[in-house]
């Protein structure tokens, strides 16, 4: 006979243990260590809210300060491993196993700890994948989350940085897990209810805001002429002919350059209202000039961006905002939107091989995937048509009956042939393969698979992989835009000339672009200050990005 109700009973025990250290739902800071020791059991699956941007930093430190003799062998299931304390938890032996998506600033340390056996890796996921597994086989026993404010009943206001919180709480709280929130302050009435209090068991008043990384701020001052040229190629050679209206941009300088060229170069090409009208995108500061020039109808956001709060609130015609006026972001919904409702993903990467696989892993760094593979993949479940999707499908498979032919999402990798310190973008073999061997992984951590990528854009030109008809053509198309890298110099010049005749490879001159016209004067903003001024003073960049 099964003894039904065991999980409810276990939750009851945790709640009782927690209440010993709380007044109502509120846990005073001095009692936090004893509280955590009481509600977390060794072996628990714990989601410590580390998102791409916002961090439950105070709860992270408190967890890392527990005694591993009291709590150990935790299984951390969290999208972002971003703070040093996230890894201290493993270093000290409090946690053992890890399933995650993104590790950004901790990418070097996480690699060392994986090699050193300090972390037992489940898998590196995409965001949607990890969120999905929260509901199937990685459901947290305890979630430690972050919000802006709470009332005494536990209703939470997350402000512009809602991000992963609704997903984490949904999976945890409705499956008998315990939810603990750190908030900046406890108020009588929250500005809007992002998370209902019924789902939140305890609240800690941190007295200061949670940490947020300004991950999507790109200083226009650092954009190079080569990046501008590459952006011009993308706009004229891809955005225009496909008529890409619904899309997602990556976070690199190449796409920032595109954003800043829309109101200048894009305007000159007559592309306003024809491209870039709807985005799944964080509030990139570099989008301000295009928004102000009336290019953009709508943007849905994964998270917010530091300093963009007032601007977003004042542009609710474009952004999703709540009754309190501030942005409502939601990573799970926005990733889904990026996957299914966008016709293009364009982003940069660190390595591309001869087949077109790309990866951001190097042998000493494991940065994870974040959301790029969700947006940078062709969704096989898509059924609605659109002009770019149909056109791309036709280029890939001209012979099939159009009514039975799948369209294709445009998945564009953009970058310069050489990156920092003259590291080539194009390689014979991805470092990800070496890493997989060393760590004995079943899968190499590939960000965008070769069968998903449709175009590669570099300063040398555009390679349209949809129109390649053989493995050999595909390889030469890639070599043909690989510039002076070893890969590029080993090209078959004759074959490449043929590919160019067919439009598989397009050079700047084929598109009527003179590389010498790639000038920083083309940028709608050349500094963070310009962005601030373009926003009418609504954008308030963090101090480290200012030069005034």
């Amino acid at each position, binding site marked *: 006979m099964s003894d039904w109700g065991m999980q409810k009973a276990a939750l009851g025990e945790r709640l009782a243990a927690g209440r010993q250290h709380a007044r109502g739902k509120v846990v005073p800071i001095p009692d936090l260590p004893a509280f955590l020791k009481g509600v977390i059991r060794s072996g628990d699956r714990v989601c410590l809210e580390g998102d791409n941007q916002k961090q439950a930093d105070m709860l992270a430190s408190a967890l890392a300060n527990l005694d591993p003799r009291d709590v150990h062998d935790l299984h951390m299931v969290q999208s972002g491993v971003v703070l040093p304390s996230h890894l201290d938890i493993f270093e000290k032996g409090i946690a053992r196993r890890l399933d995650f998506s993104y590790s950004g600033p901790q990418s070097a340390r996480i690699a060392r700890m994986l090699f050193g056996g300090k972390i037992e890796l489940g898998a590196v996921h995409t965001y949607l994948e990890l969120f999905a597994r929260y509901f199937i086989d990685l459901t947290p026993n305890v979630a430690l989350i972050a919000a802006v404010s709470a009332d005494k009943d536990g209703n939470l206001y997350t402000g512009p940085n809602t991000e992963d919180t609704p997903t984490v709480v949904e999976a945890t709280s409705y499956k008998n897990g315990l939810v603990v929130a750190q908030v900046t302050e406890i108020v009588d009435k929250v500005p809007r209810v992002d998370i209902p209090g019924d789902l939140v068991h305890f609240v800690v008043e941190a007295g200061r805001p949670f940490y947020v990384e300004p991950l999507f701020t790109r200083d226009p001052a650092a954009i190079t002429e080569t990046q501008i040229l590459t952006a011009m190629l993308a706009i004229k050679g891809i955005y225009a002919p496909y008529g890409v209206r619904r899309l997602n941009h990556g976070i690199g300088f190449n796409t920032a350059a595109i954003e800043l060229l829309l109101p200048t170069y894009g305007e000159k090409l007559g592309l306003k209202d024809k491209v870039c009208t709807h985005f799944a995108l964080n509030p990139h500061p570099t989008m301000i000039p295009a928004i102000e020039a009336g290019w953009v109808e709508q943007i849905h956001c994964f998270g917010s961006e530091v300093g963009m709060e007032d601007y977003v609130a004042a542009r609710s015609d474009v952004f999703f905002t709540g009754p309190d006026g501030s942005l409502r972001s939601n990573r799970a919904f926005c990733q889904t939107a990026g996957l299914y409702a966008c016709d293009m993903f364009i982003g940069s990467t660190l390595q591309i091989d001869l087949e077109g696989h790309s990866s951001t892993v190097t042998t000493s760094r494991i940065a994870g995937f974040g959301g790029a593979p969700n947006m940078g993949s062709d969704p096989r479940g898509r059924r609605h048509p659109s002009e770019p999707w149909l056109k791309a499908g036709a280029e890939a498979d001209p012979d099939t009956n159009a009514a039975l032919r799948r369209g294709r999402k445009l998945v564009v990798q953009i970058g310069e042939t050489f990156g920092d310190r003259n590291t080539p973008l194009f390689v014979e073999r991805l470092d990800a393969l070496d890493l997989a061997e060393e760590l004995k992984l079943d899968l190499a951590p590939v960000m965008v698979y070769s069968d998903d990528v449709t175009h590669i854009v570099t300063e040398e030109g555009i390679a349209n992989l949809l129109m390649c008809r053989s493995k050999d053509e595909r390889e030469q198309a890639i070599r043909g835009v690989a510039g002076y890298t070893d890969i590029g110099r080993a090209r078959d010049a004759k074959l490449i000339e043929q590919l160019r005749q067919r439009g598989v490879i397009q050079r700047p001159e084929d598109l009527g672009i003179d590389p010498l016209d790639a000038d920083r*004067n083309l940028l709608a903003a*050349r500094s963070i200050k310009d962005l601030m001024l373009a926003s009418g003073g609504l954008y308030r960049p963090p101090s*480290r990005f*200012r030069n*005034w």
Partner: protein
Amino acid sequence: MTAATCNDVSLSWYEASARQRIDALVDAGSFCEFIGPELREISPHLAIFDLPEQFDDGIVVGRGRLDGKAVLLAAQEGRFMGGAFGEVHGAKLTGLLRAARALSQDVLILFDTGGVRLQEANAGELAIAEIMRAVIEARRAGVNVVGLIGGRAGCYGGGSLIAGTCSKVIISEQGRLSVSGPEVIETNRGIEEFDSRDRALVWRTMGGKHRFLIGGADAFVDDEALAFRQSAIVALKISPGCDVAVLAAEQARLERRLQRFGEVEDAVEIWQTLGIDQPTEIPARPTGAFLRAANNRESADDAR
């Protein structure tokens, strides 16, 4: 009077190279360089450190016309070794100033420098001393020496001392004018004294707006080559010289500054003391609004 032609394309002073700045500053086509790059007068000392050389050693000197008037010009290239003063670099400016005195011609110095070039530190330090002396001798002979500050490297170290000898200083918001750099202060005093990565702090302590408000600069202009040009034309119209009266006035001005602001902790307090409305908003104000707010600034008229 006919306005001489000049380049009228918008050009960010901060982003422009030394040569672009000169081209945009002077009357179109009027610039003639002395010891140009084709003569390859490179630094003899960088090879010791296996460092790359630049054919003009990071400074362009020559003559041109500004609104029809003959002027001598020097422009530092802040991207080459931080625009730092080495032996050749410094000697080109020394020579230019000595010529200015001999020919009674005004000089514009387009600063963009981190100070002394460490790989030739002694030569650079002496060059700065020689330049300061040459500036004063030229000014005493009735020559205007105008400093323009708004480049990437700012105007630091010995460069800031040279700027202090100029008869007029024109600065943009991007311009920073200071002896010790942010990292140096942080290294010596700790991050609690000065967080060099807090760029807002750097700019409100050393930046163009603050310098203009306390009288450390005479004119505040937009980050545009044309704005620098217009301001330089105006600056050349008055010639204060450099006698005991001028320096006594500067003494009084600097003493007054110490009395008024000597005890404050932060630039915002100074701006508040100046009677500026909403002093915390000063950094965000566009030029027009800033200049209106700066009505009560400490002026440095003729006391430099």
